[in-house]
């Protein structure tokens, strides 16, 4: 199906919707998926195979989007970054510039992390230090928007983490990567990544306890 990318957009969109309901979807790395299967999908995607792209987009787009959204707190910017990540990946694959054979996932998330870091750096000038009152306010805001208040508070508490710890948390829980993949991607020993994750959990727990000690006591967090 090489060259299928050139079909008119409308027809293409309809075909994509149908394909998404019956898509082939290799399991994620963390689930012990077949790396050979993913390599095959990537190879076909490099040749412009539409169904291969549907597969890649269905597996990774939401995970990339979640990582950007978590850090930047702006859905529009998160989508923009997600789009740019996929366009970069597609361009590199098309031009045979992808040299990390067998490490597609690590590559994709590294591109994602770099884009998110750049955007976060640009936004940092407007960043406000996260005070406990701000965390409580964000929790209430999230609750009003339909999110449970505890998720809103947790989302705000993520802002108290250092960049390195936060990246491990977001790669793990938003990007749904396994620890081994995170270690490979960051180029750090597995033990370091595990320790960083553990330390981040402890810190988040401490922030949430300070934020709402009564509720945390009730939930057994204290």
């Amino acid at each position, binding site marked *: 199906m090489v*060259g299928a*990318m*050139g079909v008119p*957009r409308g027809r*293409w*969109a309809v075909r*994509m919707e149908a394909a*998404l309901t019956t898509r082939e979807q290799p399991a*994620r790395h*963390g*689930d012990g998926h077949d790396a050979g299967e993913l390599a095959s999908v990537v190879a076909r995607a490099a040749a*412009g195979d539409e169904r291969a*792209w*549907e597969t890649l*987009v*269905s597996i990774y*787009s*939401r*995970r990339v*989007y*979640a*990582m950007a*959204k*978590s850090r930047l707190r702006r*859905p529009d910017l*998160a*989508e923009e970054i*997600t*789009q740019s990540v*996929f*366009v970069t990946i*597609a*361009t590199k694959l*098309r031009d045979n510039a992808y040299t990390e054979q067998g490490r597609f996932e690590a590559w994709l998330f590294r591109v994602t992390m770099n884009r998110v870091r750049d955007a976060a750096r640009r936004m940092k000038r407007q960043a406000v230090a996260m005070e406990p009152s701000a965390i409580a306010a964000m929790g209430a805001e999230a609750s009003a928007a339909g*999110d449970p208040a*505890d*998720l809103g508070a*947790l*989302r705000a508490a993520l802002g108290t983490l250092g960049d390195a710890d936060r990246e491990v*948390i977001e790669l*793990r*829980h*938003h990007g*749904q*990567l*396994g*620890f081994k993949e995170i270690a490979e991607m960051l180029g750090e020993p*597995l033990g370091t990544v*595990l320790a960083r*994750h*553990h330390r981040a*959990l*402890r810190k*988040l*727990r401490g922030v*949430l306890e300070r934020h709402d000690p009564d509720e945390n006591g009730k*939930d*057994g*967090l*204290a």
Partner: protein
Amino acid sequence: MSGPNGRDMNNLDGGDERIAAMLDRLGDAERSGADGLEERIMGSVARVFAPEPLAIVEARGAWWLRTPVRLAAGLAIVAGVGIGIYSSMPGTTLEVAPGVDFALVEQRIDGLLAMADGGDGFGDSVASIELWAEALDAELSDGWLGSDLTSGLGDLNLGGGAL
């Protein structure tokens, strides 16, 4: 707790596990929303693989192809404008086409020779004209060789108007 993503690799106590579970829920929440995200991404990817419009391809290639042509055209325009300005200057007597005058002379001589071949008594006249033409040719050649071409075109008066 043993999770599909290898959570069992990190030995967590109950409180940390609860935070990890909350983070998983937060991740689910962050991945939701943005209706039509996949379709929009597919649209962007499709544009990467779409063949370039012919006009863009032509325009991209034509720049390199047309550059020498543009350069030559530009030089020709500049030269033309320069000559036009120069020739319009007062006192300029630029004659840059002596070859045209020679052609006319040759044409006239050929015509006279043709008449001579007809045997109608013009033989002497033709001979004298040929001598005159040779003398003229020598004079013009001396004029070219003798003129100081570095002194400027304004000094170059070949006297072609006399022809």
